[in-house]
């Protein structure tokens, strides 16, 4: 009989080594710029998108700042050298034929999204989810725009917004994440391509989930999407994003910037299911995911809630953060980060308390398997002005096997005496007692492990909108626990 540990390791290996399902690549003819990054390329990107001059100025300013910046090295990550001149910065599907209407999408592209389980045909789509589908550098389709428009909601690719709503974009672009914020934010500000633009007018609650689906298709291409969400006084939106990429041997770069603005009494719920190609089990290939996401609770009593399920990418560097500027504003961060094989994740959040009576909650659940490294890094910064503020943080790590690593880097800075900050951290393993208990009730080891992992991540998964919760559970390779409960 093999030893208990060896046996358990074998099962863990089987459970955690499921193949990446979205690794297919599609042979769509693309129009691409040559590799390389310089002012000329940036001018070309801007021209290709018919941008007004102020956007080009913003790009050039950002590029000039980026050239002088250094890649950050403080994260617990081993990042191979990236040759930024060896990347394609603009890639869009070449129109095959003259399309009948602006709404029409090349059937080949529709097929890609069908294969991913995201029907872009409004007849077939989920009735309560509007989708903006971004392929490489451009948005190929945004559904339900008309229905949303009737309520004054703007949901469109940011390239359209720049032309159609220049005042709004000009006012808010770079207002939460300045171009000089960090190396990757500067890079994104220089070369950003499509992402979504959302505007919710005063008092309007979005009747559907708004969602963006990002897909990197072409080899050698970086994706640099830019998303901007503005919710006016008393408005509400729930926004979701998902992402996948083909299985390729070389690493690909994804450097996005997301900015959220919540005015007085407004609420933004922002959910991510990140499933970029993680590389193969020997650590070859995979996406480098370097993302800057930040929201501001600008008005009193506003709320921003981040939920992320991170399962993909070879390397993840990502800290969705909130500036709690309005008094009584609330921020939440719920995260499940799974790393396996040779994946590396350094992820967490920053909660910057400025307003009075502000409240933030951080729930982070790391799951490490294989030879991966999984780090939580979080900052709770309570300014002098943020009297009577509270933060509650829980960072749990679950280790599967003994070759992975879990790390927690909490930073806490409190400048007044009336605020309370609590931090809890645990590290655990799936216990043999738990496994045996479930097996004794008739569950096989794989189902037992899935059930334990699902239970561990429940608090976060529960935050996701239903449509995504299901996808996320599947992603964690967990069978649905049944329709009751």
């Amino acid at each position, binding site marked *: 009989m093999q030893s208990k540990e060896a046996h358990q390791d074998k099962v863990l290996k089987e459970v955690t080594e499921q193949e990446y399902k979205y690794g297919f690549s599609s042979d769509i003819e693309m129009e691409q710029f040559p590799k390389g990054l310089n002012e000329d390329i940036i001018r070309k990107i801007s021209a290709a998108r018919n941008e007004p001059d102020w956007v080009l100025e913003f790009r050039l300013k950002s590029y000039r700042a980026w050239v002088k910046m250094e890649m950050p090295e403080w994260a617990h990550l081993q990042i191979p050298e990236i040759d930024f001149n060896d990347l394609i910065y603009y890639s869009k599907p070449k129109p095959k034929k003259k399309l009948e209407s602006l709404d029409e999408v090349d059937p080949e592209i529709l097929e890609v999204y069908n294969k991913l389980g995201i029907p872009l045909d409004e007849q077939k789509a989920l009735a309560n989810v509007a989708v903006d589908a971004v392929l490489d550098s451009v948005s190929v389709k945004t559904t339900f725009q008309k229905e949303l428009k009737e309520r004054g909601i703007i949901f469109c690719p940011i390239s359209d917004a720049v032309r159609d709503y220049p005042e709004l974009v000009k006012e808010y672009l770079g207002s939460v994440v300045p171009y000089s914020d960090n190396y990757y934010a500067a890079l994104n500000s220089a070369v950003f391509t499509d992402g979504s633009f959302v505007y919710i007018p005063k008092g309007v609650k979005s009747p559907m989930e708004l969602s963006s689906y990002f897909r990197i298709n072409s080899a050698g291409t970086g994706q640099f999407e830019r998303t901007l969400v503005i919710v006016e006084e008393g408005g509400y939106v729930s926004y979701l994003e998902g992402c996948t990429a083909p299985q390729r041997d070389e690493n690909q770069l994804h450097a996005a910037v997301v900015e959220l603005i919540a005015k007085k009494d407004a609420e933004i719920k922002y959910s991510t299911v990140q499933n970029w190609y993680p590389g193969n089990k020997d650590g070859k290939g995979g996406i480098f995911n370097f993302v800057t996401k930040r929201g501001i609770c600008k008005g009193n009593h506003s709320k921003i809630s981040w939920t992320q399920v991170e399962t993909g990418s070879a390397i993840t560097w990502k800290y969705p953060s909130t500036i709690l500027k309005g008094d009584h504003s609330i921020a939440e961060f719920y995260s499940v980060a799974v790393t396996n094989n040779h994946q590396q994740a350094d992820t967490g959040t920053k909660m910057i308390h400025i307003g009075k009576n502000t409240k933030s909650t951080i729930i982070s659940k790391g799951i490490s398997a294989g030879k991966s490294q999984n780090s939580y890094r979080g900052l709770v910064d309570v300014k002098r002005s943020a009297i009577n503020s509270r933060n509650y943080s829980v960072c749990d790590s679950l280790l599967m096997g003994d070759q992975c690593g879990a790390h927690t880097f909490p930073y806490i800075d409190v400048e007044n005496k009336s605020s309370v900050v609590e931090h809890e951290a645990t590290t655990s393993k799936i216990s*043999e*007692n*738990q496994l045996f208990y479930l097996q004794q009730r008739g*569950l096989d080891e794989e189902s037992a492990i899935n*059930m*334990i992992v699902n239970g561990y991540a429940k608090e976060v998964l529960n935050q996701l909108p239903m449509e995504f919760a299901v996808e996320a559970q599947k992603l964690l390779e967990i069978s649905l*626990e049944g329709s*009751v409960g």
Partner: protein
Amino acid sequence: MNPILEIKNLHAGIGGKEILKGLNLTVNPGEVHAIMGPNGTGKSTLANIITGREGYEVTEGEIIFKAKDILSLDPEERALEGIFLGFQYPVEIPGVSMTNFMKAAIDAKRKYKGLDPIKPGEFLKMMREKQALVDIPDKIKNRSVNEGFSGGEKKKNEIFQMAMLDPDLAILDETDSGLDIDALRSVAEGVNKLRSKDNAFIVITHYQRLLDYIVPDIVHIMYDGKIVKSGDKELALELEEKGYKLVE
């Protein structure tokens, strides 16, 4: 009539140390067996080996369950065949609700028998019926498995799960330990309601008092890895009176 369980000359241990040293036991349908014995004599080891827990080595002998040699089966296969273990220390599974846990267990059993998953309505009805049987509060349905349960609730929850899964053979490993008299009584009542001519129970206990409520057909005294004495329920009383010097 075939026995439900037949253990013949079982030698087994852990980490090279022999704990069971030639144990024999036959359990027929409709019977309740009590196994008593001092600490460290191998009672829990026996329960673990019958249920197939990893890490134990069986060096000799056989375990026949419903005319089938089960030694090569995985723990879940033995469970699906109809063996249930009521744990001495029920395990907490955070974030997994009792409802979902039981649904998964019932569906695993149905799948093993080639049946479709149970319908939600039917399942909820079953939950209600079995809850009433073992007198556990309704609120546990939405709580995580054993998380924050009192000692008594955990043990009652084991009996509840047994009622749900309706095993042919239930092994109750010191289900009475740490229970006050009321909890003990309700656990025993649950077991008594589930007794039938077709199933069988092995009740492992230190104390005679449980056997006042769950009246055994046969009492075994286990000592140093073997069953050294068997008798009717009077044996338990005699043991209580004289102590283990009875078998030393």
